[in-house]
């Protein structure tokens, strides 16, 4: 069985993809380029180091699946790790720099919606098998996420009567929320594999 696996790797993946060393080289070059770009940005504009680090990891997790096609366990775990770092770093930065707090409810719900969208899309990008994985648990999770997203959007557009007012009236808030929830659900629900 082990022998078959080795043959399989050689027969199928290697014919289409660059050599693993070349994949790593490309990825390293892109990250080096981004590091130089960030260095020059910090020379002209004062940006906190935390933002620079999070941006760097965000770029790494965005480019990683494009360049690294090595189907090895370690490569896959590294993708997950990059995702976790980016997500947690992003949420922390949002809390710290965007003044997100429950008191400022419209900003709070908008932040939740943004984290949901970017978080799920990035996860689908890094672990592409998850896009197609269809099970009752995944569908329930997607429904719950869509409901949360819809509630956030409605509060953001309409507000909460007596607490905070939004930017649209009730009719348009409902319409815009429905459109956005459909868009969100269509994007996150398991796709057909082919």
């Amino acid at each position, binding site marked *: *069985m*082990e022998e*078959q*696996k*080795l*043959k*399989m*790797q050689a*027969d*199928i993946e290697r*014919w*289409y*993809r660059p050599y693993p060393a070349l994949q790593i080289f490309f990825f390293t070059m892109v990250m080096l380029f981004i590091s130089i770009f960030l260095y020059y940005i910090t020379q002209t*504009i004062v*940006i906190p180091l*935390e933002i620079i*680090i*999070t941006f760097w990891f965000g770029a790494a997790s965005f480019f990683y699946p*494009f*360049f690294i096609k090595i*189907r090895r*366990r370690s490569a*896959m*775990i590294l*993708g*997950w*790790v*990059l995702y*976790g*770092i*980016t*997500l*947690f*770093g992003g949420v*922390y930065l*949002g809390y*710290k720099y*965007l003044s997100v707090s429950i008191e400022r409810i*419209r*900003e709070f719900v*908008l*932040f939740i919606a*943004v984290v949901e*969208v*970017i978080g799920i*899309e990035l996860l689908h990008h890094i*672990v592409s*098998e998850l896009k197609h*994985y*269809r099970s009752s648990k995944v569908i329930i999770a997607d429904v719950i996420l869509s409901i949360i997203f819809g509630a956030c959007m409605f509060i953001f557009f309409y507000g909460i009567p007596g607490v905070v007012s939004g*930017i649209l009236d009730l009719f348009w808030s409902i319409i815009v929320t429905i459109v*956005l929830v459909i*868009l*969100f659900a*269509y*994007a996150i629900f398991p*796709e*057909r*594999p*082919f």
Partner: protein
Amino acid sequence: MIDFLIFIAIMAVGGIIFGIIGYLTTRPDPIKEEILGYIVGKFLDERYFSVKKISEALQLDRTIVEDKLRELEQAGVVMKTRKGWQLVDPLVFLTKRDYERALRLTRGDNILYGAYQLYKLTMLGGFLLFILILIFSAIVPILVLIYPPVGNFLTSIFGVNPFLASLFLAALLILIADAFDNILKYITRERYMVVVAEHAGILFDCYFLDELSGYIRRGRIRDVEIKISRIQYLNNWFGDTPVGDVIVKGRVVKKNKSGQIIQDKQHVFKSIPYPREFFFIIQSIKLGNLQWRKQNAPILAMWKAGTRPVFPTEAAPARRRKR
């Protein structure tokens, strides 16, 4: 300084949590491998099998076998039909509905390859549109940071922090791009299906909602060729599914008053997934020898099932010390 250390700690916690999730989800599954190996080894020609047979042969609990089969069904290696469980050839990249349609139209022929021509992957316009959406979604937050009037404008519309508003716009653009991608995939599925069957030859869709009306009979195939364009090379290096054009040259027999005229005609299948394997399959049916498929079926099935997609590196042979 403490803030920065907290930030680093939070990032590390995120990395560790998701690293553990990744570790757990990519664990090799020996039972699934065993079941798959058994099915491909025993039922490649017979195709239909039952859970009972497998659980008896491998001495596994029926519920475990059923669970693993469901996981394999997700990967498209097996399929549950009215007759029971069925082994699907590993080079069939069709949805369940289309696979059943192909079986019906070929009268239950042995389908060796099935896929959709992924035109959208090599469409320059679509590719540029995606790039534009991505660039725009990144530019808006950057503009807010470096050019304050943009931020003020967003605040006047949304009434929230300008950077948060720009991130919201970016998120909306990403959702739109994803929805656009899903629509393109739907069109591809309805328009560009190709099937290679053991006896029927090559069948393909000619127009939207077609029922595989185009065909090249097995005996008429003369030559097969693979061509990979520069965009396809780029896609193969950085995209999910490797593609290439496959040109099939065939003979067409036409009758006129003076008798039969044999003409050569070629059909180009554009952006076929895994073109090398498509080439081998066509060569196999042309020569009437399915040895290549038989030899590689277990390997291909495991690759497709991604059992759970771990491929150990080949250990380098130990160097001998010079004496």
